[in-house]
């Protein structure tokens, strides 16, 4: 196969999503020459379909988070017939941040030390305060609205913008939590609420952030990190599908073989190859890149690559109210959360670790009928009554549980299908663990009670949301023990000099909250280490004393 040699660079990054963008910018600022490859295109969010009359149809089809439904040209095949949770991701410059809800919580300090504290899972080789300065830096670049002072979390810097507004439904939840004596707090949201802030428009509460934001109010890395990275000299190559990582006779990673939009092959040589293709795409590429030096795939000497896949198994309970709650206004995933049951309380939950409850606002008419994350409305004679009772009468709560790393839950390859570059399908094998199931059961009971306290006259339970596989974590984990962890604490693949991993694959534990804030903070930290920079100074010591 002929492959055109691209000019040598210090670092080539595979994946232009949340992690790849942060690392590219940070490395370029440190003086490295950086090239980035992503299988997806640039998207113009100003043309997002939420300005079109058929916006809901587009959201349910062509912009669906599940690649099996969306069928976009850039998607790679995924075999998901042995998992109860469907995959959700997006390929494009910006990755899944192009279609996310922008809920932006941080991990708790305990999330980094689950084995030390609870005897389960795997400790991180760092702690919360190692990441704190990177959390703050990342917040500045993404742009975060919210409010400091949450008693469920360590003290953090003031948020740049006030919290997103509550709507009638979420305000009822806040008041009900107070009556129950439960914790709640307005969400940290990567959404611009400042009319003149960040060079982006202010959110106008339209609702479906997942479609892309034509106002650029909701952050995504194509409008946050990438302009800064490109200004710093990074070369971004869209629609560049990677075929394999090439190693030399000694097993060192030397180059990336990739295919452009016209089908021509290229070879990008670099001193450092950085994988940021998410916890499904990264192990897929490592397992496929076999050679004499790496017969079972790169870094897979101990058969650990792709194992310990962690999602956030999610239940969803919807409360239906007699009175109208008004139109589905406000960012659908950002309003408020409760971490009342976040930390381990085995006597109460019967499980280790915990879960977050997060408010989800109502959907549009078609979304209400089809259900999406929840059960769809019945067809037939009762359909129209059900619609009138549900639409603008519903607010929901997620139960987002912390998944523990189980070796049988994994990503591997399925040779029955391959993408245009000849890389086999990713195959997901996954079971919800007994521990996660106990947390889900406990959370369903508590969220049902919360909604009833808020005045819901009916509750509908989705015991496990099938379309909630949006977080792929832990499949190429980092840690100190070379026999257990593929990646060292600096992100370097142990068995393959010249190769690093910086995305959610490296998470030893999953926490019980959305991971993007932690993922990007860790990516910035790894970028400093990989670029030979001194890490930022650890977080504020006084914060560590603010515990009960």
């Amino acid at each position, binding site marked *: 196969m002929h492959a055109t040699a691209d000019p040598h660079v210090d670092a080539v990054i595979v994946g232009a999503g949340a992690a790849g963008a942060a690392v590219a910018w940070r490395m370029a600022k440190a003086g490295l020459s950086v090239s980035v490859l992503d299988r997806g295109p640039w998207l113009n969010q100003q043309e997002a379909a939420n300005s079109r009359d058929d916006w809901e149809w587009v959201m349910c089809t062509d912009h669906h988070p599940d690649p099996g439904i969306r069928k976009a040209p850039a998607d790679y095949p995924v075999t998901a017939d042995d998992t109860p949770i469907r995959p959700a991701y997006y390929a494009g410059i910006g990755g899944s941040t192009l279609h996310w809800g922008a809920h932006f919580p941080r991990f708790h300090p*305990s999330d980094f030390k689950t084995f030390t504290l609870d005897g389960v899972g795997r400790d991180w080789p760092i702690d919360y305060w190692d990441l704190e300065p990177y959390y703050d830096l990342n917040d500045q670049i993404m742009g975060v609205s919210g409010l400091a002072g949450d008693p469920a979390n360590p003290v953090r810097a003031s948020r740049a913008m006030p919290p997103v507004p509550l709507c009638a439904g979420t305000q009822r939840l806040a008041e009900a939590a107070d009556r129950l004596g439960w914790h709640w707090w307005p969400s940290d949201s990567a959404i611009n609420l400042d009319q003149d802030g960040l060079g982006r428009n202010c959110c106008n509460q339209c609702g479906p952030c997942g479609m892309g934001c034509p106002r650029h109010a909701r952050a995504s890395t194509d409008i946050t990190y990438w302009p800064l990275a490109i200004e710093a000299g990074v070369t971004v190559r869209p629609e560049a599908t990677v075929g394999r990582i090439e190693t030399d006779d000694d097993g060192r990673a030397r180059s990336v073989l990739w295919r452009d939009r016209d089908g021509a092959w290229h070879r990008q040589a670099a001193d450092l190859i950085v994988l940021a293709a998410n916890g499904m795409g990264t192990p897929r590429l490592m397992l496929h890149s076999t050679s004499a030096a790496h017969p079972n795939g790169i870094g897979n000497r101990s058969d650990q690559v792709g194992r310990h896949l962690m999602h956030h198994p999610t239940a969803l309970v919807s409360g239906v109210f007699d009175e109208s709650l008004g139109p589905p206004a406000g960012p659908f995933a950002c309003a408020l959360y409760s971490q009342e049951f976040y930390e381990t309380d085995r006597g109460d939950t019967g499980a280790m670790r915990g879960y977050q409850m997060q408010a989800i606002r109502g959907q549009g008419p078609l979304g209400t009928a089809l259900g999406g994350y929840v059960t769809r409305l019945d067809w037939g004679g009762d359909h129209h009554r059900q619609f009138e009772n549900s639409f603008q009468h519903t607010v929901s709560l997620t139960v987002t549980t912390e998944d523990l790393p189980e070796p049988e839950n994994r990503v591997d390859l399925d040779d029955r299908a391959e993408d245009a570059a000849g890389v086999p399908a990713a195959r997901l094998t996954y079971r919800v663990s007994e521990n996660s199931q106990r947390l889900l059961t406990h959370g369903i009971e508590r969220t049902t009670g919360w909604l009833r306290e808020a005045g819901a006259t009916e509750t509908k339970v989705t015991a496990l949301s099938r379309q909630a596989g949006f977080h792929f974590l832990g499949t190429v984990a980092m840690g100190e023990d070379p026999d257990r962890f593929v990646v060292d604490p600096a992100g370097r693949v142990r068995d393959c000099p010249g190769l690093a991993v910086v995305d959610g694959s490296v998470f030893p534990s999953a926490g019980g909250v959305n991971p993007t804030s932690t993922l990007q903070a860790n990516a910035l930290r790894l970028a400093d280490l990989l670029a030979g920079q001194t890490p930022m100074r650890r977080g504020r010591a006084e914060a560590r004393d603010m515990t009960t």
Partner: protein
Amino acid sequence: MSTDRLTIVLDRLLPGDPDAGWPAAGALGLADKARQMAAERGDADRLAGIVAALPADFDDVSEAGQVAALKALEADQPDAFDLLILYAYGVYYTDPRVRDVVEARTGYPNRPPQPEGYELPPFDERLLDKVKQRPPFWRRP
């Protein structure tokens, strides 16, 4: 001339409610649009297949019999039936005549979310007065 089977199916799935002003999906003439939407996504054959999987006498039995046949199909082929529902609900709730009814019945405006968006009052920090009294309760490693 016999009625198109998909039109009958749409009328059974979304039969309308004259008292409330909801039109039946088939009566709106949405079958061709549903087929077009399926064709645009490469699902034309699958949609035709699920409709063809109904009993041969489906068109001629009573409405109750048609509902029973659809329920049997839903039980036997849930994934294929989900596809039928996607196109049935999709064509119905994106039709401007139906969106007018949604607006009339619920007040939800028949327009896309952008560019107007919606107005909400700013977050009222006084709502947090009680939570703020709680001491920190995160766990020390």
